[in-house]
């Protein structure tokens, strides 16, 4: 009887074992299949990701070219739907499959455990030898020692492989931006140092200060663009623009643009090589449509500005970009398409660590759209801005120091306004101009000069406060007024250049007209004083040089061989002129 009971027990356990083993087998196979399916599904999940699917990108690019192709649209929608369906189905499969796998693994483990409980080994105590405890101890110590050596060796290898100074600037790093950033971190208001005498610069429209006065020495007085005489190099500029070259050290910057593209170009001053070109594109807030401009003004009328570490450029659509001298984009911002008849043309000015943007727009002063903004050069944020009671204008502001204060002088219709460049508060304003104000203000003989065809030439004393229209206009003159070219003021004289060739000379302190000369050519460029000589470039590219005085004693002429509307840049021994197609460097190799 007992024997039978034992047999039954043994048979039962054998049966249970079989059940357990078989269920383990089934569960194991199930898990393997689910695993394989999940793996295959995962591959599909990745392939059908609608984000950045190359198929869709290619189709959309094609649609951009043939906007009216309806079949293509249907195809895109179909592909998109297919991808999304696949993707979400795969996603569902992953979550369902994981649960199935978890369940399968659970059954597998439990049934294996149950099966193994039938297969317990009895310990075999006879066959065991006595362990050699001493040997075991020595062996263990040896193993620990080996592991320790391996670990320490790995440590040495790691330390050597990853040595160095992560996150520290290399000692000899001459990256200009890094240094500037370091400086700015300590002294946020420190003015970028004016170029030391060893570095030649022409950092903005009409030179340092924007007065059109060059302090350069040995500026060439003769060259011939057609023959190449005196021309050091000539390089084509990819996109055209009305803006003038700016120079700092061995770098020359111009910008160019068309309806879609806006670019900044950097040339090597000694070889003329195009070092880099960078587009100002994808600026957050940039207008979606191109601006409407007059053909004569173009899309890149404003001249760039540089502080020796960065170069700033603004374009007709209000996009402002900042790059460092290596061509890396530092920041960009967009002011949107200005409501501007001819197209935005005011060039940039720099005061200490602020970039000054005169953003005048609107058909009438009452539109209230004009503003002058000071942008932080480090990151493009607006440091201050002031609304201006003027319509659109095309003059460029200057920063002067008069009567012991820094003054930011702007000229527009009807107000000539002086601001405190540190915070944008108004110092004084004078109501004098009318018409489409394009000539920029200048400062000489202690007076601010503004002029406009249809208004007058005004000399304003800069020591006023508030509305000085009736009190601080020293004199005004009416002859030979320009509509484009900015005047030139020295200690003694004021020169005005008219578009159709007439140049007049006034006595700066008194306003008496001293003389005039008709050059019988067309001028779009403003005059520059170099030493005692006035350099004036006409539209055909011919440079007229004459002594600064009422007699207009000629010093010489020089031909570029190409038309030009820009204001050249003058540095020691060199002149940089931008023609309609090419950028020229006139001078000797240094």
């Amino acid at each position, binding site marked *: 009887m007992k024997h039978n009971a034992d047999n039954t027990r043994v048979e039962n356990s054998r049966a249970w074992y079989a059940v357990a083993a078989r269920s383990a087998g089934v569960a194991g196979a199930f898990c393997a299949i689910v695993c394989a399916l999940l793996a295959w599904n995962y591959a599909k999940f990745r392939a059908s990701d609608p984000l950045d699917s190359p198929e869709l990108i290619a189709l959309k690019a094609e649609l951009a070219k043939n906007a009216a192709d309806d079949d293509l649209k249907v195809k895109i929608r179909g592909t998109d739907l297919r991808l999304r369906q696949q993707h979400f189905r795969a996603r569902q499969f*992953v*979550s369902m499959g*994981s*649960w199935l796998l*978890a369940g399968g693994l659970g059954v597998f483990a*439990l049934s294996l*455990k149950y099966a*193994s*409980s039938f297969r317990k*080994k009895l*310990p075999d*105590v006879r066959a*065991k030898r*006595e362990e050699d*405890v*001493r040997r*075991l*101890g020595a*062996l*263990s110590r040896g*193993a*620990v*020692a*080996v*592991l*320790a050596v391996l*670990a*320490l060796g790995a*440590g*040495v290898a*790691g*330390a050597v*492989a*990853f*040595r160095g*100074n*992560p*996150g*520290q*600037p290399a000692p000899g*790093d001459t*990256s200009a*931006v*890094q240094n500037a*950033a370091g400086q700015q*971190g300590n002294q946020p208001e420190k003015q970028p140092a004016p170029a030391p005498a060893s570095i030649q610069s022409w950092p903005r429209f009409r030179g340092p200060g924007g007065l059109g006065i060059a302090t350069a020495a040995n500026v060439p007085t003769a060259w011939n663009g057609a023959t190449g005489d005196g021309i050091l190099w000539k390089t084509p500029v990819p996109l055209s623009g009305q803006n003038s070259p700016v120079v700092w050290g061995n770098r020359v910057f111009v910008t160019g643009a068309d309806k879609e593209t806006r670019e900044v170009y950097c040339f090597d001053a000694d070889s003329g090589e195009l070092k*880099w070109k960078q587009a100002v594109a994808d600026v957050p*807030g940039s*207008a*979606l*449509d191109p601006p409407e401009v007059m053909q004569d003004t173009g899309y890149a009328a404003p001249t760039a500005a540089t502080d020796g570490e960065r170069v700033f450029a603004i374009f007709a659509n209000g996009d402002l970009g900042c790059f460092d001298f290596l*061509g890396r984009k530092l920041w960009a911002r967009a*002011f*949107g*398409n200005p*409501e501007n008849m001819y197209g935005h043309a005011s060039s940039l000015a720099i005061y200490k660590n602020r970039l000054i943007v005169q953003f005048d727009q609107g058909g009438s002063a009452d539109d209230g759209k004009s503003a002058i*903004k000071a942008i932080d050069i480090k990151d493009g*944020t*607006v440091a201050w*801005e002031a609304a201006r009671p003027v319509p659109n204008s095309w003059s460029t502001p200057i920063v002067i120091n008069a009567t012991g204060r820094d003054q930011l002088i702007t000229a527009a219709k009807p107000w000539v306004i002086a601001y405190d460049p540190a915070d944008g508060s108004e110092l004084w304003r004078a109501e004098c101009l009318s018409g489409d104000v394009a000539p920029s203000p200048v400062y000489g003989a202690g007076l601010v000069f503004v002029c406009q065809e249809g208004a007058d030439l005004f000399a304003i004393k800069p020591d006023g406060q508030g509305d000085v229209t009736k009190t601080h206009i020293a004199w005004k003159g009416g002859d030979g007024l320009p509509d484009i070219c900015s005047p030139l003021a020295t200690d003694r004289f004021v020169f005005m250049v008219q578009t159709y060739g007439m140049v007049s000379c006034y006595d700066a302190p008194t306003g008496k007209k001293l003389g005039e000369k008709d050059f019988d050519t067309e001028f779009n460029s403003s005059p520059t004083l170099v030493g005692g000589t006035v350099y004036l470039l006409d539209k055909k590219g011919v440079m007229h040089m004459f002594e600064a005085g009422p007699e207009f004693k000629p010093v010489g002429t020089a031909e570029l061989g190409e038309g030009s509307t820009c204001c050249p840049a003058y540095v020691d021994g060199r002149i940089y002129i931008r023609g309609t197609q090419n950028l020229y460097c006139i001078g000797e190799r240094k």
Partner: protein
Amino acid sequence: MARILLAILVLIPLWTANGAERFPPPEFKEGHQLPTTTTPPARDAVLAYADVAVLAAALGLAAWLVLRRRSRRAVFVLMVFSLLYFGFYRRGCICPIGAIQNVALAVFDSSYAIPITVLAFFLLPLVFALLFGRVFCSSVCPLGAAQDLVLFRPLKVPAWLAQALGLLPYVYLGLAVLLAAGGSSFIICQYDPFVPFFRMSGSIHMLILGAAFLVLGMFVGRAYCRFLCPYGALLNLASRLSRWRVTITPDECIKCRLCEEACPFDAIRKPTPAGVFGRAEGKALLAGLILLLPVLIAAAGWLGNMSGTAFARSNNTIRIAELVRQDAQRTHGDPVNEVVAFRKTGRPDAELFQEADSIRRSYMRGGWLFGGWVGLVIGLKLIGLSIRRTRTDYEAERGSCMACARCYAWCPQEHQRPKPAVEKQ
């Protein structure tokens, strides 16, 4: 249409001051109700306290089941419950193993306030280990449960290899504390092989690693617990000091040798034969190793200091500083995301480099500590392997016994003793 939009763009004053919108939000004519942005709440804070309560209860139950009830089956059931609750329901997070890093961060970073529940998760298993041995490992830790569940064919790891590998949890512990305290990363969480299974998702290489550990776990008992788990290192130390512990037989051992193969984790130590060691030779070795200890600590500490820079590279601030530095050499293309984001903050580079430098220095100091710790562990291990111990009975080694209750069934004394519900296995 685009033209209308252009007109809108031009007519709206484009204020650039912060806060005001480019396109002013509309005032609707017919009183349209704006939908609300939904904010689904996070898990109720009360539930975190409930987790702590469940942990305490499970630990208490485990201690009672292992030491009093002495039932492998009951321990197994509790283990499955822990796997389901702490593993699949709570997705294996927060766990006491990871809590080491939170505690390390709390100690070294005064800006981090460790939640009291996380601290409880760290301390409770330690306290229970101090009192009752590694009952946490036996049936409360979901990672241990997962490995225990898949163990079918335990192979014996050679003793010398097991001793050597036994160093790794201490090294891992030191490394995890170093990197967590420095604010770099929580490597225990990052390289946890089982948590992707609990979450039922994860990156491919983590899933493969986890699968590899599971397959390994079928043949090598609790490989992660024995040779990697950093919390296991702490529990090992605590368990050695414990007040009560697992004894294979609380009665007199009759040295029947049946339990020699009982433990799949090689935690059972045999009684030592008499008169094996000569007195002199053992002493000389021991003395030498004791003298070696400070040398080892100093050397390893110095090596850790040298490696400090290498460890520092894992820190986020240093990574960004390095990328910003490399950006200075970039001649074309766009800067990487980190550099773009950094420039957006407007912080000057020099400030970032200074911060990176001070972090690097703190890593070099931490390297001394980490290296010294590794040296200490190696030295003490060597010493421990040279100390003669006399044992008269079969004992579960205090530090490495995982209190899984498997060995009770092998002891005939256990079966003899009258007690409730003795089950056959």
